[in-house]
């Protein structure tokens, strides 16, 4: 019943079925046509992989095998692939939204390894393949709300973080999960600027990490993550502001105390640890009562503003975790 007071998505927000299906045809056509053109274009050769604003999906990125679709998904109109991959906050590649797509061609997400550390029975350094192997991939279409007051609807491909965590058997001392991004100043030009205290860090309370909504993501729109979206592995926590979704994860640590997080370290009064989407708690600069939805063709100037929902509309799944907490205090 917690959805009672929220507006249903308007019929105009929903992508018509024929168009939605045609998307796959276009894909198939491109899948057949493009590989021939790309012979000799290794993903590492400099410049070749530079993003030249693809209108549809970048088929140079491998298509993923999706075992399951639909859980917790929304039917709201999706953001275009081009917008979701060319409007990014990923300060490791620069502070403007266009920078990550422009400056991430040199970044090498393969080979990749992830260190698992802290209060768990199984720890150590694992290759990405070892991390991913046991997990069938699932597509989930989530709303993504940025603290800056805009939002998108993105079909992510990944698996539940809870399934990954279970493999490492965290001990009872593990109260929080701390994530650390990779630090590679030579491949990430933005790290030359001390805009944040590198490497980027994020964290979740254990129950938040174990919530079925919390996703480890390896792709979007059916294809592997482009560098600018956090390849090869990132976090997506749909009821929290986008900055919680740490990208290019290099380390996961189970800890007893609440970990410090990058934006909280930069401006404690503006970015809380929990960072749950909350229309009642305003940011000093951006209103959180409403948001500008970036979806569809991207060219509809009017009527993009919608009401922001508590927990970004996922209250039914997550609100109980915060009962008894003053979320205006613990924002």
């Amino acid at each position, binding site marked *: 019943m917690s959805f009672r007071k929220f507006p249903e998505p308007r019929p105009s927000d929903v992508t018509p079925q024929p168009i939605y299906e045609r998307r796959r045809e276009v894909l198939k056509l491109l899948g057949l046509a493009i590989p021939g053109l790309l012979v000799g274009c290794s993903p590492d050769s400099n410049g070749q992989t530079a993003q030249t604003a693809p209108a549809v999906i970048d088929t140079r990125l491998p298509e993923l095998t999706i075992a399951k679709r639909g859980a917790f998904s929304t039917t709201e109109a999706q953001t275009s692939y081009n917008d979701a991959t*060319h409007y990014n906050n990923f300060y490791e590649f620069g*502070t403007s939204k266009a920078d990550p797509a422009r400056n991430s061609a040199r970044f090498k997400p393969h080979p990749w390894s992830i260190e698992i550390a802290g209060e768990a029975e199984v720890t150590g350094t694992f290759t990405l393949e070892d991390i991913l192997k046991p997990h069938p991939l699932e597509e989930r279409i989530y709303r993504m709300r940025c603290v800056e007051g805009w939002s998108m609807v993105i079909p992510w491909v990944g698996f539940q973080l809870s399934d990954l965590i279970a493999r490492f058997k965290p001990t009872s001392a593990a109260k929080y999960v701390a994530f650390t991004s990779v630090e590679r100043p030579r491949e990430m030009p933005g790290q030359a600027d001390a805009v944040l205290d590198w490497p980027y860090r994020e964290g979740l309370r254990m129950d938040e990490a174990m919530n079925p909504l919390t996703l480890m993501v390896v792709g979007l729109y059916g294809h592997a993550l482009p560098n600018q979206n956090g390849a090869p592995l990132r976090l997506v926590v749909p009821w929290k502001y986008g900055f919680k979704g740490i990208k290019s994860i290099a380390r996961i640590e189970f800890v007893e105390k609440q970990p410090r997080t990058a934006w909280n370290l*930069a*401006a404690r009064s*503006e970015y809380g640890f929990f960072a749950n989407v909350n229309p009642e708690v305003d940011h000093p600069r951006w*209103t959180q*009562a409403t948001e*500008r939805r*970036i979806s569809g063709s*991207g060219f509809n100037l009017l009527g993009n503003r919608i009401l922001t929902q508590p927990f970004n509309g996922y209250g039914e799944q997550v609100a109980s975790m915060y009962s008894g907490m003053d979320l205006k205090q613990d924002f």
Partner: protein
Amino acid sequence: MAHRFDRIAASKPFVFAACLIPLAWLAWDTLSNALGTDPVAQLEHRSGDWTLRLLLTTLAITPLRMLTKQNWLIRYRRMFGLFAFFYASVHMSIYLIVDLGGFWSQIFTEIAKKPYITVGFAAWLMMIPLAVTSTKGMIRRLGRNWQRLHRLVYLIGLCGVLHFMWLVKSGNKIAVTEPLIYLGILIVLLALRVPIWLKQLRARTARNSPQSINRRVGFSPPNA
């Protein structure tokens, strides 16, 4: 009967047209869908940028005139000032109509709660009396008060730059280069006026000294 050709007057339509180029450019990019992923934010940023640029251009006339002794420059000042107001109004309208859209009444809470919007809105409000009193008739009618009133432009400039500085995402170390450039230019433009202000101040204190007042009213103290 041959009038001297007034070059300044003749050039004004061209300057006027030049001031409209940013608007035309914005309109063109809007119609050709070239504003990128978040077109509303682009419209806001670009109209805001041009407001500040024209405001600083207006403020640059006096120091430039002083330094170059080119007095004709002053004849463009009103046009730049009015265009600054015009772009500020475009900027406001985009925010209110396009961005806030159906939630336009949200502007009241924004003005009250977001410092950068408070100063931005204040700057726009203060520009209204200056625009209204920019006609020849008003200048004549207001006399010396006209100049007093129009000193508001310094405060408007400061509020405009603060509006930009405070809206930029900032942690402890986030660089805010672009607004700082505007702030730097504003400070230089105001600093260049300091000699003029000092001179005026000295003239006024001299005028208001007991001796000079006595002289003016024809009073001579008994023991003088």
